[in-house]
């Protein structure tokens, strides 16, 4: 256990000191500032923007939470790419594996420790954004977040775990960081996003089994509007609870599968 915690803490420290961390921090700070500006500017103008003279405060609040959460569908992907994609491949590319792999520690402990460290730093980045979000919207609406915020938060945690796991798995396949970076982005934005669009366009089937589709539940927890799905029926009501559980389970399946495959690939990994 002490070895595992040493690995975990060491990698958290590594990530914390990396340029990727500060880049993500800068990115999330800029987005947070823009969202604060947006919220204060449009808090009273938004109904007109939508075309309605008055919207109940509860719907308005849900709408603002929904818009803030839109960011959380994309930033975790970049965060996972920054922290997860080079996780294994960089050890080979930078030849640090020569020193790490022979250490008297189980490979799976090394993998899990590094995985949890990457998840932790990704989550820290998101927590900063969430604190700003809750602070801003609580100030503007004079109320604490509703239950849907906590649903969305739990779903976000599952999504970060899943994305980190998928990036670790891909990182375990390649020996070069660039390939890992590109493959993750291609898989997520071409296979999942574009694939979802093409499947719906051609076959009129909602590919609910795709990770990007399941991840949309993070924002749909507030309002059942899938911003990446042009064919679904939007609704201002939150997504049904069954839909929330279903999407969470889809993400969990991706997480378990990719984690197991990544772990096996890492076990077999050899420094050539």
């Amino acid at each position: 256990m002490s070895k595992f915690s040493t690995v975990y803490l060491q990698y958290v420290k590594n990530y914390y000191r990396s340029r990727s961390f500060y880049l993500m921090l800068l990115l999330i700070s800029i987005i947070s500032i823009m969202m604060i500006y947006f919220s204060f500017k449009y808090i009273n103008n938004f109904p007109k923007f939508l075309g309605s003279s008055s919207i109940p405060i509860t719907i308005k609040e849900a709408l603002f939470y929904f818009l803030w959460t839109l960011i959380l569908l994309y930033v975790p992907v970049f965060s996972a790419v920054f922290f997860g994609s080079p996780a294994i491949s960089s050890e080979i590319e930078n030849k640090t594996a020569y020193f790490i792999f022979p250490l008297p520690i189980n490979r799976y402990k090394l993998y899990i420790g590094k995985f949890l460290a990457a998840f932790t730093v990704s989550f820290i980045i998101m927590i900063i954004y969430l604190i700003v979000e809750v602070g801003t919207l609580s100030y503007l609406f004079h109320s604490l977040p509703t239950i849907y915020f906590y649903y969305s938060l739990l779903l976000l945690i599952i999504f970060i775990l899943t994305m980190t796991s998928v990036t670790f798995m891909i990182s375990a396949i390649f020996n070069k960081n660039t390939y890992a970076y590109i493959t993750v982005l291609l898989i997520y934005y071409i296979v999942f996003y574009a694939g979802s669009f093409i499947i719906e366009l051609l076959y009129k089937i909602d590919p609910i089994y795709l990770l990007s589709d399941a991840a949309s539940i993070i924002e749909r927890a507030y309002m059942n509007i899938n911003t990446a799905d042009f064919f679904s029926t939007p609704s201002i009501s939150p997504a049904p609870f069954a839909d929330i559980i279903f999407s969470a389970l889809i993400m969990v399946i991706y997480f378990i599968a990719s984690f197991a495959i990544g772990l096996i690939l890492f076990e077999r990994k050899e420094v050539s």
Partner: protein
Amino acid sequence: MKPLILKLIIILVAVALIVPTALMAYDYYQKVNTPINKNPFDYIPGNSNMVATINKNNSLFYVFDDNNSYGIVANISYNIVPSNSTTILAPSGGSFGNVSHNVTVKTLIYDKTEVYEVQNVNLSSILKSTVNTTLGSLSANNTTNVFVYLISNKYVVMGQENAINASIYAHMNNNNAMKLEPYLNLNINTSIYYNLSGLSVLSGISAKFLTVNVTQNQSLLNIYMNSKIMPYELELLKIAFANANYSSFGNLSLNLSHPQISSHNNVLSLKYNISSSQTEAVFKTLNIKT
């Protein structure tokens, strides 16, 4: 631990976790995809004076009159917060009609139900544009406020304030018009239920309600009496209806003659050989003009 054993353990644990998760996900997927089985009659007050189902452009509209306050239930193709563009809430197969003047939308909460008050529109023109029907008691030029609420993104209920209140109350308190559904034929052009509240049709013969079913070729009017029709009563009714050009049922008037008359238990059936395009005379009885 041997690498092979470790791999096997990893695979077994992963499979052991994924299989029940997938089964659970499938269960929830079924729940998510179970169509919302809402019945429009659940949103129509049970004590309505009149309930009509009208088929137009492959869409079914349910019109009801609750104490001279009119409402309409229709399928909706989508659900977005209403805006100044009134077409946004237009039911599928219809529109809010010609509402070029200033229309504003206000959101209200009635009995925990979100209701949109569309101000300065003409309910008569909405009915005209959606079901090609005008209600005699509504002035064609009467600009008023129309109240609208949505049922699970599937139906829209719109109408006058009292009708909408009654509709929400009917649903909440289970005082709905489900019991009237068997009397209406949803597959034909027009089917109407009219409450007669024990009105006397002939001396000593009173009726509970009547239904009118209009098909392409004929119109069938069934009058449900309070008690079984005796043979001599049927003879009297036959004489009364066969010769009358103008029969009256309280507020209703029947401007037709020479129906084929029959009876079964407490139901008097009057069959008119007129097509759906000639039904204005029938609808006059119900204060509805097509």
